[in-house]
């Protein structure tokens, strides 16, 4: 919202400069985002007097003028048809930036220079309203009033020298949405009182009550309704001062009646509406809710479909406005309007908010009503509009205000315990000071006892309800930065301080192992493929279809990352992400949508490998990564965190996403998959390279992770190494042979390494040879050669019998 510096001066005396005021309001919590001087852009424009006008020697439509600009007399070539000697005009001097170029379709600004136009020198420019960005008239130059002082700065003459503050209003302070509201806050800064102008009305003998009726059928939603009637007005353009006031804060001037209602709203914070009195059937206002599905055309010409909880302003026959939001086209002020009914009402905030949300209409009025408007302001605002209509549009104000106000607001009384305030803030503010501080906010001390201060809250401060609210006000006035900073070092040791999680350890480990951590978006486009039997969670109101569904797998966000990197020449990827995936729980259907329990979240770890193992360098091996690189990484990771309580299971029913997959089991529970990304999926992501991925349930890793470590005695006897090579049918898996060896090894096998795998002529078709290096580790005593040989024999027999193997002779 915009606040004008000169406008504020109507309500409070102050000498703060714009930068001072901006800084000090901000420190009170009324944030000034920026401020600017609206007159600054007219720096090089002055009032000129056309002394003489003659025809341009080479162009029929142009004239050459001699213009007195105070300091000198300039020769200016002008193309406007309405220029004439004797006029007072707006002159742009060389170097001025003309806000809008009449000859540019987009009306961009340009810098004025001395120039020759068709051979005649032009030393400046006489400007139109359009060029000065003061209006849309571009048919001729702007003619100033005759009394304008020649040579005076144009901005001074037009009263444009003003500073506007762009302020950010917090949701609790609806009272700041007006100039009087900001002026009241300035009482804290200046110590002076802010006040609204006194109303001076000349009322006619005819009473308002005799000419209009107001019936409130819904006093819960309409808490107060003040109305006045002004007759015999002339609708027309507003005077310059009013236009300037509104344009300074970004409101377009419409006509004098509408401008006055806007002015009063920006002055008092009370939204006011003017109806064309003669369009109101039965000269009656009825306030009630709409019927479901009725339609209504608002001022902006749009048809609205109503709901039964939308409060409407009606006459005897029809709707004429959506209460607190917008008036109707059927009763709006037109050029022919002569009589108006002024509405200054107070509506229940949450109803206005629901209406505004439902209709998608946020207006100056609705924004104020939904934050809460001072209920005591209604009659004043009606009077104020009447007074201004009388002064500006020449109306006759009927006698008296119709004021429907059945349940008078009880002013809030709040008790403050000074000791409590000091305890909470860490301050030592005296009772006297507290009273003084709060008085600056118009909080009146009503009672005082030993440890209690009782205050009456002004009616516009709807945010002040209880003691804590007053404590905040005290802190604001005292100054947050005047409160001391203090630290206590009372660390609480009664509960364990948990600062490191298994996540941290995994990150440290993987980044150390050369993996790059990524963070993917959890909101993704609807996935093209997915794991079967998983129901994704969808967002009901996405901003874009690119972020409409919650990921069910980290793959959904990681694959685009891989693709992005390939597109930028980075093929050799070692990536990981720790992130959350989401799904609907099984069996949860429509009727459980509103229950948190029907949505599931799971933390996962994703590892992705692609490209080569390393960049090819003369002394290092480099090859394309394969499944076993990934499997090795997973094995290393799981060994580190799970102490061998995991296993891999061939996963026959390959999922839609991953082929040649292995399932990972941790402590007997399925924990995820690893494998090669299915070709069909890769294609959908425009991925040509082979990608190896693994996605594991982090919670299972966390549960299995052993934090407590226990020392096991190191072996005191030497180990014995033996190599064994077996020839088996190619269908026999390594896993089977390994378990046969381990089973027969009587717990002596401390290391088992498959160091050679051979398929070919030497073993014959349908066969393969697997060579193992075994290490026997005795714990009780030294293992003799004979004992080792016996153990080998036993192992060989077990593998021969269990796997149909034969020992490969050297």
């Amino acid at each position: 919202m915009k606040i004008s510096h000169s406008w504020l001066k109507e309500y409070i005396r102050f000498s703060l400069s714009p930068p001072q005021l901006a800084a000090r309001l901000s420190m009170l919590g009324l944030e000034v985002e920026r401020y600017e001087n609206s007159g600054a852009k007219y720096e090089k424009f002055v009032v000129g007097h056309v002394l003489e006008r003659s025809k341009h020697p080479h162009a029929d439509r142009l004239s050459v003028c001699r213009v007195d600009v105070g300091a000198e007399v300039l020769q200016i070539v002008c193309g406007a048809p309405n220029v004439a000697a004797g006029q007072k005009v707006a002159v742009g001097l060389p170097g001025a930036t003309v806000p809008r170029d009449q000859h540019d379709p987009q009306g961009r600004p340009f810098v004025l220079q001395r120039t020759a136009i068709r051979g005649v020198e032009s030393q400046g420019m006489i400007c139109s309203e359009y060029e000065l960005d003061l209006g849309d008239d571009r048919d001729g130059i702007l003619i100033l009033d005759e009394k304008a002082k020649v040579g005076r700065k144009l901005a001074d003459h037009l009263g444009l020298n003003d500073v506007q503050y762009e302020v950010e209003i917090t949701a609790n302070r609806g009272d700041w949405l007006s100039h009087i509201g900001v002026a009241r806050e300035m009482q804290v800064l200046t110590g002076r009182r802010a006040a609204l102008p006194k109303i001076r009305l000349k009322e006619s003998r005819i009473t308002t009550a005799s000419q209009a009726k107001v019936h409130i059928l819904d006093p819960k939603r309409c808490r107060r309704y003040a109305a006045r009637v002004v007759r015999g007005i002339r609708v027309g353009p507003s005077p310059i001062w009013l236009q300037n006031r509104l344009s300074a804060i970004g409101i377009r001037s419409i006509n004098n009646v509408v401008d006055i209602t806007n002015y009063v709203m920006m002055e008092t914070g009370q939204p006011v509406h003017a109806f064309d009195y003669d369009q109101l059937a039965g000269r009656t206002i009825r306030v009630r809710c709409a019927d479901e599905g009725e339609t209504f055309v608002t001022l902006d010409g749009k048809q609205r479909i109503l709901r039964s909880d939308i409060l409407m302003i009606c006459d005897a026959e029809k709707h004429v406005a959506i209460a607190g939001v917008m008036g109707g086209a059927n009763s709006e002020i037109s050029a022919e309007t002569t009589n108006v009914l002024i509405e200054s009402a107070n509506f229940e905030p949450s109803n206005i908010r629901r209406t505004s949300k439902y209709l998608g209409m946020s207006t100056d009025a609705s924004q104020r009503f939904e934050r809460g408007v001072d209920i005591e302001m209604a009659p004043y605002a009606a009077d104020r509009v009447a007074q201004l209509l009388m002064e500006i549009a020449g109306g006759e104000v009927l006698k008296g205000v119709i004021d429907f106000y059945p349940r008078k607001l009880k002013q809030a009384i709040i008790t403050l315990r000074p000791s409590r305030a000091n305890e909470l803030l860490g301050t030592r503010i005296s009772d006297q000071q507290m009273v003084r501080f709060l008085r600056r906010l118009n909080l009146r001390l009503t009672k005082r006892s030993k440890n209690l201060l009782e205050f009456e809250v002004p009616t516009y401060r709807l945010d002040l309800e209880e003691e804590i609210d007053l404590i905040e006000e005290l802190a604001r006035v005292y100054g947050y930065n005047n409160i001391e900073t203090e630290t206590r070092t009372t660390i609480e040791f009664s509960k364990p301080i948990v600062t490191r999680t298994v996540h941290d350890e995994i990150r440290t480990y993987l980044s150390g192992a050369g993996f790059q951590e990524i963070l993917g978006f959890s909101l993704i486009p609807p996935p093209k493929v997915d794991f079967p039997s998983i129901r994704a969670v969808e967002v009901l109101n996405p901003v874009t279809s690119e972020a409409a569904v919650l990921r069910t797998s980290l793959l959904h966000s990681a694959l685009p990352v891989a693709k992005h990197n390939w597109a930028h020449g980075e093929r050799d990827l070692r990536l990981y992400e720790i992130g959350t995936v989401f799904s609907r729980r099984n069996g949860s259907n429509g009727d459980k949508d509103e229950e948190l329990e029907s949505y599931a979240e799971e933390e996962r770890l994703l590892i992705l490998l692609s490209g080569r193992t390393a960049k090819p360098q003369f002394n290092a091996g480099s090859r394309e990564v394969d499944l076993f690189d990934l499997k090795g990484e997973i094995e290393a990771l799981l060994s580190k965190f799970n102490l061998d309580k995991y296993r891999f299971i061939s996963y026959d029913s390959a999922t839609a996403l991953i082929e040649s997959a292995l399932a990972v089991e941790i402590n007997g529970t399925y924990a995820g998959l690893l494998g090669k990304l299915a070709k069909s999926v890769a294609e959908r992501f425009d991925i040509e390279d082979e990608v190896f991925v693994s996605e594991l349930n982090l919670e299972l890793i966390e549960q299995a992770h052993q934090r407590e470590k226990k020392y096991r005695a190191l072996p005191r006897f030497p180990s014995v190494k033996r190599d064994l090579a077996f020839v088996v049918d190619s269908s026999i898996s390594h896993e089977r042979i390994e378990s046969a060896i381990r089973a027969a090894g009587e717990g002596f096998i401390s290391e088992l390494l498959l160091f050679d795998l051979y398929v070919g002529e030497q073993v014959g078709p349908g066969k393969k040879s697997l060579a193992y290096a075994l290490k026997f580790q005795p714990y009780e005593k030294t293992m003799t050669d004979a004992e080792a040989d016996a153990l080998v024999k036993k192992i060989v027999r077990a593998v021969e019998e269990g796997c149909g193997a034969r020992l490969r002779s050297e």
Partner: protein
Amino acid sequence: MNALLEKSDQIQREFDEALAQANDRDELERVRIRFLSRHGLVAQLFEQLKEIPSEEKPSVGKALNILKARTLERFHEKKRTLERPPGDVGKEVDLTLPGRPRPIGTRHPITQTIDEIRQIFASMGFSIAYGPEIESDYYNFEALNFPPDHPARDMQDTFFLSKGKKVLLRTHTSPVQIRTMERQRPPVREIMPGRVYRNEAVSARSLVSFHQIEGLYVDRGVTFSELKGTLVAFAHQFYGKDVQYRFRPTFFPFTEPSADMHISCFLCKGKGCRMCKYGGWLEILGAGMVHPHVFKYVGYDPEKYSGFAFGMGIERIASLRYGVDDIRMFYENDVRFLRQF
């Protein structure tokens, strides 16, 4: 002198000579078998060690060990020379050749920033806590004192997951405050990082999802003054000792009094630059004293306990700190970008 030692010296000499004459792998293998195999000359010496008087054993044993180590070392050195690639002709090794590369990984800059902030608060006794990203209206709004139909709800544009708007994506990490207080009695001292979601147009300065870190401290007698002290201590640790700071009133439904904390712009030292929008100050976090209504929701007695809470946006902090102009970079995950951290 012990005969065994003499023998050892002799074997040493013979070994050196044989090794010098070995010019290919086969010859080298023969040297290995003769001297270093299981029944080679060196092993035989060790066998003979059993037969000498026990008082001599330690010194002779030590000499034999040295022999074994030296011969092995020289053998391997020779082996490496013979196996050197053909291009490498000279005896001198070119030490400027590159080492064998190892892949380098880093943690994501957002994670790094969170970790650093966490560590500072951990040193002040804060524990870590997490909460779900799919939240209920109750935890995200109601228990945080956002009344229904209140304009305060517009402060955070929300993604809804259910038609009745009861289930949503959390808009801030503050619901973890409620969950934490429901779980335990005071004193509470927790730091709560995580992802949050806002239904806003994506731009260089805003994302539909980003990270926040929340802090909560509740105990008897916690003051606003202490809130300031704690956050100033944090700012000095994180942004440097010279940083200036200020607190400004603001509004959050779940704290009162509420404050924004600003620090002097560390890029221009407060002189004014593009990053601080020429104001010389950067807003780094929001904070405040826990609102008594919030205490009532979690069953704490506001007369007995007080506390403060604070929250900050990680992407903003990280982008200021690292000078990243477009926060979308953090989620593009370009490895050339990530490797810089």
